[in-house]
């Protein structure tokens, strides 16, 4: 009964993985003939420093994101205070602010406060990254806390555990896998960030990739360094998987979701003060500064570029980010459905498709150009159609970079579909496609929606791939921001930045709706 399905499934998995990993493989070809002289020089000069700075930044950003993300998630899930639901929503909104926008806003602001020299530090860079990335941990931890249900906490309380005891000895251990998954995302974003670290003069490995490539013109050596970076990311993910195993505890179907408990008056004041402080720092100050700059820019008449005004760029962003997010979610969903219930090997192979997420954007961009241009040279497409510089080529490269977000998000929700349901369907004669459409997709629909929303957030913010592969005359909001910031015209970058943040907020809103309805983030 399953025979044809087996082959069809494996063909799908291998085809998707091969296509998506191809731009990285094309670049990794250079590993066969390593550039030893570049490595020797790097090791003598910058590499040790890069490794140290990368490690310091990684540890401090992940630590900060875990502390704030988990703490705030516990606060809004375990306790009742006024505006709790609104605050719970707002705490995710920093995701809508691109790191490179938050970076220049904070750099300029802190330069005014502490001076240009002191503002350029690894620690301030870490703070800026924590402010923009903690929502990943927050989202995952909150979903896990709510999911733990009321009973285990009630038992703990009846056994005499205080507030701290309930948190540290019951809720936190059970949420460990979720927190680890959020922390892994934070780590990945930190490792591949280039825009923010450069602003603060932090020499990380990702920055080193660009240094080697632009400095020596040796794309091969740059790719080798990028591969080392990906290796580090893979190690991190393996470590995270180990952390994940065990620990998780979900409430049974009859058990109530976690019920927020009332706080004392002082507790309410403290809760509001803490969340408000976070919101003011992570969202309020950057938005205020952007509003201020934007109004100056509008007054000076620079809120347009020659390519057009806000609507032109907004339209292009919506079209490109929208198509890329749609294609990613479709491919990600098909991959996740095919991989599901097919065992460990399928999972490992499926995960190869996420390699683009562990690479700095510019490396993926060049890998895609090299690969697409090689295809173009074969002239297979009609009418001399060229993939490089086409919307199709750009969407492909974006999917390579962000497929992981769609695939893993859907996979997590599919894992919660009981095998009894899918197996019953198969026993009753439904094929794999019918089972997927009738049982798995409906059950995982909010997971698909959440993954789609996260994809939209990422696609709208994306810069290096769009910059290199966009068709002529198709400038997006992020390209506009780049054109202004690369000339240090911060005021002129404010209008497109604000528009991007607003779109991001809508996507974040959709994400939260999906999560409230039961989307899963962690498999």
């Amino acid at each position, binding site marked *: 009964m399953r025979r044809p399905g087996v082959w069809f499934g494996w063909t799908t998995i291998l085809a998707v993985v091969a296509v998506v990993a191809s731009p990285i493989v094309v670049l990794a070809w250079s590993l066969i003939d390593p550039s030893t002289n570049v490595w020797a020089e790097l090791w003598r000069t910058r590499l040790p420093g890069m490794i140290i700075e990368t490690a310091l930044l990684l540890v401090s950003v992940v630590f900060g994101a875990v502390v704030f993300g988990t703490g705030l998630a516990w606060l809004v899930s375990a306790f009742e205070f006024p505006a709790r639901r609104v605050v719970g929503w707002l705490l995710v909104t920093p995701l809508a602010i691109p790191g490179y926008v938050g970076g220049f806003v904070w750099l300029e602001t802190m330069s005014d406060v502490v001076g240009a020299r002191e503002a350029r530090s690894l620690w301030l860079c870490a703070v800026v990254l924590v402010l923009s990335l903690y929502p990943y941990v927050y989202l995952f931890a909150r979903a896990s806390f709510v999911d733990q249900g009321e009973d285990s906490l009630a038992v703990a309380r009846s056994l005499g555990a205080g507030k701290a005891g309930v948190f540290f000895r019951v809720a936190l251990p059970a949420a460990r896998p979720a927190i680890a998954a959020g922390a892994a995302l934070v780590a990945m974003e930190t490792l591949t960030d280039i825009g923010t670290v450069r602003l603060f003069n932090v020499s990380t490995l990702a920055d080193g990739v660009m240094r080697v490539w632009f400095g020596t013109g040796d794309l091969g050596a740059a790719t080798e360094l990028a591969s080392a970076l990906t290796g580090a990311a893979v190690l991190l993910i393996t470590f995270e998987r180990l952390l994940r195993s065990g620990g998780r505890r979900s409430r049974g*179907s009859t058990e109530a979701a976690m019920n927020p408990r009332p706080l004392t008056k002082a507790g309410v004041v403290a809760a509001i003060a803490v969340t408000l402080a976070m919101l003011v720092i992570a969202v309020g100050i950057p938005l205020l500064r952007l509003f201020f700059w934007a109004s100056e820019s509008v007054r000076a008449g620079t809120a347009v570029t020659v390519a057009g005004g806000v609507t032109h760029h907004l339209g292009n962003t919506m079209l490109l980010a929208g198509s890329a997010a749609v294609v990613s979610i479709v491919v990600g969903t098909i991959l996740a459905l095919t991989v599901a219930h097919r065992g460990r090997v399928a999972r490992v192979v499926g995960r190869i498709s996420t390699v683009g997420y562990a690479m700095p954007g510019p490396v993926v961009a060049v890998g895609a150009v090299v690969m697409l241009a090689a295809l173009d040279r074969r002239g297979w497409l009609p009418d001399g159609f060229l993939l490089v510089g086409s*919307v199709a080529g750009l969407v492909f490269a974006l999917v390579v970079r962000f497929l992981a977000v769609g695939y893993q998000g859907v996979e997590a929700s599919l894992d919660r579909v009981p095998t009894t349901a899918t197996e019953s369907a198969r026993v009753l004669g439904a094929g794999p496609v019918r089972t997927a459409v009738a049982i798995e997709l409906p059950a995982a629909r909010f997971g698909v929606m959440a993954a789609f929303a996260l994809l939209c957030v990422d696609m709208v913010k994306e810069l290096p791939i769009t910059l290199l592969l966009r068709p002529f005359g198709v400038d997006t909001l992020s390209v506009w921001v780049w054109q202004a910031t690369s000339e240090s015209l911060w005021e002129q970058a404010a209008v497109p930045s604000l528009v991007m943040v607003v779109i991001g907020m809508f996507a974040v809103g959709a994400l939260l709706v999906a999560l409230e309805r039961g989307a899963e983030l962690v498999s």
Partner: protein
Amino acid sequence: MRATSFRDPHLKSISLLFSLALVAVVSACGGNSDSESDSATRLVTVYTGRHYGIEPVFEEFTAETGIEVRFTTGSDPELRARLEAEGANTPADLIMTADAANIALAAEAGLLATVDSETLRSAIPKELRAADNTWFALSRRLRVIMSSSERVDDAPTTYAEVGDPKWKGRLCLRPSTHPYTQSLVSALINNLGSDDARAIVDSWVANDPLYINSDTDMLKAIVAGDCDIALANSYYLGRLLTEDSTIPVSLTWPDQEGFGAHLNISAAGITVNAAHPKEARELLEWLATKGQKLFSDTNNEYPADPTVEPNEILSGFGSFKADINSVRELGRLNPAAVELLSAASYE
């Protein structure tokens, strides 16, 4: 588990999503067949790493010649990588860079065609174009010593003096990731040899410079008091002076008794695989002649053709000696400069 059924409205929304996906894919594939459809309009396509103030220049060219300019912006090395990968299929007819090393690297990679043009040879001095005429400078920019006119009355007069210990903690420099820094060090190597160039860079690093990856922000740092002197390109001061003529930053032309101020260029070349070589040549020749003034003035740069007058702000900076002999060497010496900067622990 949650309730699921065939009649679930959400199932509809998911199928809607999938249909949308199909539409998006189909429209994405069909969205780029504009390139050669209208053969009546003449077209030239430009990849440009210089992206500030080029639009009005291209518009003026189109108004005068009827040739439409299609361009994409980006960073020099990435555009070069794209051009190289595209090979014969590239849509690019002309590549334009914001510094000398990057255009020379493109020529070295065999991406640029030789242009035999009397117009270009007579407009652009021979030091400012490739020996094989694969690239041509279009404007000149000088990397000079900027200082606070409020706090500094003994600004350094040479690149070496910037390393004087009295500037310790008072100096702003651009990180070595930037081509302007790399080209400056290439010029030092060309004039003084590796050892002396290294000694100068070491003395800068010993002054514990504040590294800022933006010439504009270095000048603002001087105004704000974060540093007293900086090495920056001349046109950034020009740009700030256009906004506020009282800005307290002074310019000193370095090494006037020696090899002269470090001269870098904005340059362009026609690609070997240009589909519109005739139009590309017309644009290049126009930029080197009639368009010289507009091209240079929009960014407060000195025209590559020395007979064309710079704008008033630049005329106000006075005359100077520039290191014109190093320009052709900047590409060749770039790897050595990058290595020197790394070895000297320059950020």
